[in-house]
């Protein structure tokens, strides 16, 4: 043990990979973030002056407000796309924030050391010198309204339009202190929850001792299930919110009362990962295209190669990979909603059920390996998966996923697109089907239905159709797979 070379003599800065558990770094290291500068609504009609507001970005999923550590640029500076403008401190880290618009930093609305809610304007960016004055006037207005009554709701522009996530929060409980004429007594956790769920404390009647507002009051107002009972000693569990309470408040999902006799079993790590991935998939606009594939030739081919250790999984993976070579867009992915990310390798992930779990071992470079090697590789991967010895790159490097439930007799099904990939193919069972040919003769042929789910941001219907056509041709002439 002692002789094993220590793998961590490198610098801290390069080590972020090692934190597999908490994705968010807790260190005051700086990362770079691009400023969200929403398109102004007016620009789509008439091109007037182009004054853009720079908003407080959401640097982490739990961030509700950010503190301006320092402005790197000062008023009047000319900014060019990609330059760092300001350092923002979130709940997790300090980050350099850069702009992706050229312009002049006309006015700083929120100065160094001050805090602004996510989505509130922190500065104005003018496109030309002439607009600087106008922007300054605007800034003066908004800062006035901010100082009198802090609501950061910007007066004129409607930022919410183009802003996907953070709507400007309600009247703030500015610091940790609840102030104002009416005395509101809320516990620290109640205040935190109120901020998080955008509940106005002034509108609540406290039910706690001495009429104070408790976390439960806020949760009730936000329409979420209470995350905990108030932690009485000796009582079950004081569960301080080390983890944020469920955020699914938007759905208004009030958890139904448990059915008597039901039991709750916590997710295993693998199940948690599946759950997380599935939730993430909801942010991708997907669509599906189905295709019937005649498999008589495939079945004959399989009989021939089966004794040599070739598996159906390997054949399907190989066929998909060969088809992908001709349709690289289906092998691409869309990471940021702005770009096609074309993958140089064709790595076919194959969904495999494991005892109580689901994993997708990856057949790397499936287009290049021959069928026999692929089959062998697949067996190795399965053994490793069962022994829980898969290396990360053996289950997360897939560029396209194959899911086959045909062996259960499923004739067709629909798969969910895994995050980070462009498409997934769901393969049903091959069944004898009556087919009529062009001349009106009926024949019985083995037919299997494949259904591909794809990310419509990069893959369009015609792409998928063409890909499936190619795939179908390969399956109908499987001998080419041995070449």
């Amino acid at each position, binding site marked *: 043990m002692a002789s094993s070379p220590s793998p961590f003599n490198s610098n801290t800065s390069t080590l972020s990979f*090692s934190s597999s558990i908490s994705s968010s770094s807790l260190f005051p290291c700086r990362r770079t973030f691009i400023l969200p500068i929403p398109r102004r609504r007016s620009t789509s009609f008439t091109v007037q002056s182009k004054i853009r507001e720079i908003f407080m970005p959401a640097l982490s999923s739990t961030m509700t407000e950010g503190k301006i550590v320092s402005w790197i640029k000062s008023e009047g500076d000319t900014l060019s796309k990609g330059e760092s403008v300001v350092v923002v401190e979130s709940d997790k880290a300090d980050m350099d924030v850069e702009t992706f618009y050229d312009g002049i930093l006309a006015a700083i609305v929120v100065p160094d050391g001050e805090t602004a809610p996510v989505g509130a304007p922190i500065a104005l960016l003018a496109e030309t010198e002439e607009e600087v004055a106008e922007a300054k006037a605007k800034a003066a207005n908004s800062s006035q309204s901010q100082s009198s009554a802090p609501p950061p709701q910007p007066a004129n522009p409607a930022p919410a339009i183009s802003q996907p996530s953070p709507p400007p929060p309600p009247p703030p409980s500015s610091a*940790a202190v609840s102030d104002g004429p009416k005395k509101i007594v809320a*516990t620290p956790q109640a205040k935190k929850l109120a901020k998080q769920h955008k509940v106005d404390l002034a509108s609540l009647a406290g039910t706690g001792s001495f009429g104070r507002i408790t976390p439960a009051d806020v949760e009730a107002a936000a329409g979420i299930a209470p995350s905990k009972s*108030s932690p009485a000693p000796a009582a079950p569990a*004081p569960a*301080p919110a080390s983890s944020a309470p469920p955020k699914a408040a938007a759905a208004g999902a009030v958890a139904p009362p448990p059915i008597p006799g039901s039991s709750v079993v916590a997710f295993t790590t693998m199940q948690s990962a599946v759950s997380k991935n599935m939730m993430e998939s909801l942010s991708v606009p997907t669509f599906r295209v189905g295709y019937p594939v005649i498999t008589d030739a495939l079945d004959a081919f399989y009989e021939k190669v089966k004794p040599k250790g070739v598996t159906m999984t390997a054949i399907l993976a190989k066929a998909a990979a060969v088809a992908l070579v001709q349709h690289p867009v289906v092998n691409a992915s869309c990471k940021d909603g702005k770009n096609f990310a074309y993958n140089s390798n064709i790595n076919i992930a194959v969904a495999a059920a494991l005892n109580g779990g689901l994993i997708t071992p990856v057949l790397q470079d499936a287009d290049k390996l021959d069928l026999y090697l692929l089959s062998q590789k697949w067996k190795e991967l399965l053994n490793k998966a069962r022994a829980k010895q898969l290396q990360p790159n053996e289950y997360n490097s897939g560029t396209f996923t194959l899911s086959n439930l045909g062996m259960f007799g499923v004739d067709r099904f629909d798969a969910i697109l895994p995050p980070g990939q462009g498409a997934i193919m769901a393969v049903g069972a091959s069944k004898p089907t009556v087919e009529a040919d062009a001349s009106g003769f009926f024949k019985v042929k083995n037919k299997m239905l494949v259904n591909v789910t794809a990310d419509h941001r990069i893959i369009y219907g015609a792409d998928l159709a063409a890909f499936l056509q190619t795939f179908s041709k390969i399956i109908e002439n499987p001998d080419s797979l041995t070449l």
Partner: protein
Amino acid sequence: MQSTLSLSFSPSSSAAAVSRSPTTRFSLNTPTPLNLRFCGLRPQALAFTASGNRRSSQLPSRPRSQAVSAALSANGSPPKSFDYDLLIIGAGVGGHGAALHAVEKGLKTAIVEGDVVGGTCVNRGCVPSKALLAVAGRMRELQNDHHLKSLGLQVSAAGYDRQGVADHAINLASKIRNNLTNSMKALGVDILTGVGTILGPQKVQIGSSDKIVTAKDIIIATGSVPFVPKGIEVDGKTVITSDHALKLEFVPDWIAIVGSGYIGLEFSDVYTALGSEVTFVEALDQLMPGFDPEIGKLAQRVLINPRNIDYHTGVFASKITPARDGKPVTIELIDAKTKEPKDTLEVDAALIATGRAPFTQGLGLENIDVVTQRGFVPVDERMRVIDAKGKLVPNLYCIGDANGKMMLAHAASAQGISVVEQVTGRDHVLNHLSVPAACFTHPEISMVGLTEPQAREKGEKEGFEVSVAKTSFKANTKALAENEGEGLAKLIYRPDNGEILGVHIFGLHAADLIHEASNAIALGTRIQDIKLAVHAHPTLSEVLDELFKSAKVKAQASIPVSEPVPV
């Protein structure tokens, strides 16, 4: 009042803060047939009081009696004979450390205690608070589903029994107190019960009786008590100090903690783990004053922000009224600078953790013309007491919280050892920059030497360059195995000669990790030398190994090549 907070590097100090718990040392020293000792003078410790001839009662149990006389004559003590070579007033950790070292050096030693042996640290400070923090740490682990799950563990709802937790703290304190008492008895230190009052040079009255003892040298080690600013009414139930809080008589739903130094921070860790919500009231503009700013910022992100804690900074608690007549505890806050009323808090309890005040009343300092400064006994760098005229008082020393140099239990002990070195003929000056400090939150914070701003200021003044190196616990195998990768270690050093100016650690077991750095500072070890030392793999100590290795020092290693040793 709260100005005391900002005063020194370790202001709110010892109660909860002190790191070195004396457990191990004492239990190791505990001899087996304790009850057979005749030396004890404490009625409650033994069924009978040793009378008159103390010396003869000690002789059988004292193997070193000859050494004593030898030392006496060797010291060339004045013709006038003293009852003791060394008398220590106050049997806290400081006095205890001094007594043990004095015995080792062959001095005939007595220790005077007017309250209970062990002082603040053992009875009302570091020791019981470690018991509560141990519980808090486990509760946190058991409640952190995410963390447990990532280790593959499943635990259903964790709960606690308040009295059980409180008993653990009380039992620990009494166990350590017994160990401490026994260790002194075993070595033949006389424990004199009663308040010690200095009557004149080398003369101390014990209690209100007319018992007067003389000693060649006297050490004042009377410690400190919780400091309560004026306007705050402590009732011991809903408005409490650390003394009461450690008994854990109740766990309030919502507690305000006045002061965010070590004591406040540790209690916030305990209370939030037990389900309380906490509001900090801090007079300075930021929480955790006194910590290196970078460490403080990180600590706030981990120890404050994600927990059920909010805070008011830059405010004084000008008036605190306990809960009574069906009303909650009320805390009036005023702006620390303008003194204007800011807000009123209504909470279930308030813990006053604004630091500690020296306990020097009744010590008879006026008899030797010593005037305290804000209660502290003025001393020079060798802990020699300075009188009103600025002259050294011969044969009188003061250590620990009572002199206010560094209010930490182990600092007191180190000062006591330094004094004993001096009175036995070897000059010694304690380097306070080598004394580590720790805060036992989860995860822990520890530090030694200067903070980065202090070091930069010093560098500017003295004209040397200051560099900083940092490593993360995220890179440490052992920390990741525990799934506790949150943490940072920071080294402040001189790149020209490799001198270590300060080390600050925030992370798993930081309090145990600091000693490699504090020892290096104490021994003058330079980075270029210590970076060649070997650390076992995989251990948390590699965080420091990596820290030293990442420093860029211009000087070359100075340790001579050692002789090859066959393995």
